[in-house]
């Protein structure tokens, strides 16, 4: 009894730590350890084909990237891919969200259809578009020929530009719904009184869009930009299935090169360095977005 009376109650901080400890351990095991380990591997010469040559080499893998032509080319392709995918996604998602934000007959059906591509895994998406773009039996060729727009079937994915653009379109189709959902959620939070007031002030549709809608959508847009940039930078499955990175290296993105380096060439050291470069670039771009847009969207009604 004496001992019980002398026991001090746990402070809030200690309780919080005690209650969260299991979750912290699980996160450390499932998230922090793999991330930390991959960074450690990126500092090694670690190729399964030469296990005896495995050793710590510091930042040599990263230094090698500066003169690695495959890496530099993939980085260029990735940057362009991100720009095209992001541009198309933001514009199309905004249009779709604005349309779906209106009330009209069949809106529910259209909403369901617009969200369907999101449910499709990247590999299945790639396979579907490969079937559509197929040079021999593709639906696109069939449609264009029936419309009288082409005389004979084309091999759409065999020119560098064609392969790049069609791959970007396939990626946009797959990830667009996610952006639409976010923007639609943002649109639904705009008070209708603002539009009413703008209408009373004789503001046209364009002014209502630029002065009411866009400022309210800055935060959702920020989320879209960050997540879609990450998605586009990490794009692998659709590209792998659709073009395998070709023709030549026209669609070899950095994520594709990374997977190839690790799984096909079994070079875990260099592959991990690639992965960390992707992470660093995405992080920098995200910080840039936040810097540009966060403050502008932080307003009061």
């Amino acid at each position, binding site marked *: 009894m004496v001992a019980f009376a002398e026991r001090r109650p746990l402070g809030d901080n200690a309780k919080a730590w005690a209650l969260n400890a299991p979750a912290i351990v699980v996160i450390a095991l499932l998230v922090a350890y793999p991330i930390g380990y991959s960074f450690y591997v990126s500092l090694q010469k670690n190729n399964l084909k030469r*296990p005896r040559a495995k050793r710590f080499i510091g930042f040599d893998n990263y230094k090698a990237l500066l003169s690695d032509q495959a890496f530099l080319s993939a980085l260029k392709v990735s940057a362009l891919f991100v720009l095209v995918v992001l541009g198309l996604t933001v514009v199309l998602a905004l249009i779709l969200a604005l349309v779906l934000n209106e009330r009209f007959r069949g809106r529910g059906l259209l909403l369901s259809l617009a969200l369907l591509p999101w449910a499709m895994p990247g590999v299945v998406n790639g396979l579907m578009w490969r079937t559509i773009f197929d040079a*021999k039996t593709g639906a696109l060729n069939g449609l264009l020929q029936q419309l009288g727009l082409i005389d004979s079937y084309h091999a759409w994915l*065999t020119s560098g530009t064609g392969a790049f653009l069609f791959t970007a379109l396939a990626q946009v189709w797959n990830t667009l719904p996610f952006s639409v959902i976010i923007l639609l959620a943002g649109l639904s939070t705009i008070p209708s009184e603002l539009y009413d007031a703008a209408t009373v002030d004789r503001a046209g549709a364009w002014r209502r869009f630029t002065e009411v809608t866009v400022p309210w959508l800055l935060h959702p847009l920020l989320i879209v930009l960050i997540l879609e940039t990450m998605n586009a930078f990490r794009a692998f499955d659709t590209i792998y299935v659709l073009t395998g990175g070709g023709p030549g290296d*026209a669609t070899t993105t950095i994520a594709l090169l990374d997977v190839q380096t690790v799984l096909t060439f*079994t070079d875990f050291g260099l592959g991990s360095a690639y992965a960390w470069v992707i992470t660093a670039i995405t992080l920098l771009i995200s910080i840039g977005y936040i810097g540009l847009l966060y403050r502008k969207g932080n307003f009061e009604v």
Partner: protein
Amino acid sequence: MELTRRHILKLTGLGLAGPALLSACSNDSSSGGGSGDGSVKFEGWDYEAALVQQNLDRFTKTSSVKVDYTPITSAQYVQKVVAEFTGGGGPDALYVYDDSLAAWVEGDYLQPLDGMAGVDEVYNAIYPGNAQAMTYDGKRYGLPYYTDATCLTYNAGILAQAGISKPPASLEELEAQALKIKNAGLLEYPIGLPAQLSDTWWSWVWALLFGSGGNMFDDQQNPIMNTSDTVTKDVFAWLQQAATKSKVIDPASLQLLPVPVDNAMKANRYAYTIGARYASRDYNDPAKSKAAGKIRMGLVPSLDGKEHGTVSNTRMYGLAKDTEVKDNAFKLLTYLGGYDDQKQPYTAKFWFLQRGLGFAYKAMVNDPTITAALKKFADPKVYTHLAEIAKPRNVLGVPWYTEFETEMHKVVQGVLSNQTQPSAAVASLAQSAETLKKKYS
């Protein structure tokens, strides 16, 4: 100290349930033969797994050695085996691509077979090219599974319709014949090639090089395609011309893997392709092919029209370095890749008769059963001659071969799609080879 899964589980105190669950989910943690009854853990890519099992059942029946066979999807075979050998739980005996041999020996996955019973006998009986492909650093690491030589395959029916009576000897002639077929309105693109990046190796590129007496590397694996050997550049120039000027090579080739090319050949959609000899068996099978009876096998056309050679490939059975059931695993290897007690290469013959897979044993070509089966889909003389003039890629003896082959595919795609000029292509390949040599030195 390396942190292993076991260490982490111990350290984090997940208790007994975690390790038990993980080990139940994982493969056997020992390196093969783990069941203690001498059974052999055997792995291969998933080609005709039911037939493989049928053959293994026969082995178990006659030898009383149990075999635990796992077919692995061919697209993931190399990665899966490497992961198993690295992480533990690798097989005792396995299929090995000649492409992977050097890397797997360097990785300490395989053990040499020199000195084991019957190995010398096998190596004396097979084609030198196959023996060379299974030898690394002077040691022998495999017994032959199957081999093939790449050939020109043509549809004699389409050629006849265009008034062509014999296959082309030179690349110029091939292009001219293809143009004749194109101009006659028979086919828009008479030549189809499997040039999709996902394919692991493009035998047709090597066949064209060897067919013209060229090579990309000297005997010390130094790149010569940009210096002393002009054949690579000239072959690339021909490919570019045929793909983009005369347009006799189907541009869709860049999207095609071997199976769609096979299907197109069987549907009379291509007059020519360059590929494995054994494919002709399928092409000439009336149950599967509209072109049955019309498909012929020819030598690979060359730049000067003279006969030079072609490329061979060798798939082999290998023995894991740390197998605990070496005797039984070698018994299995001998059954699959060597001679049976009747001094016959039973399994090699089994595969030829079942699926037309090429064999490494020289004497098999004189076996009446083989000859009779061969005549159904090929001219035995051409078939044998191709085996005699075929040679393996000398660059297989380097651990960076996979990287080079992958790079080569990209470069050749660039040539075919007119993005890269032949001189830039060979310069780029030479540069890649030098970079890889340095990286692996």
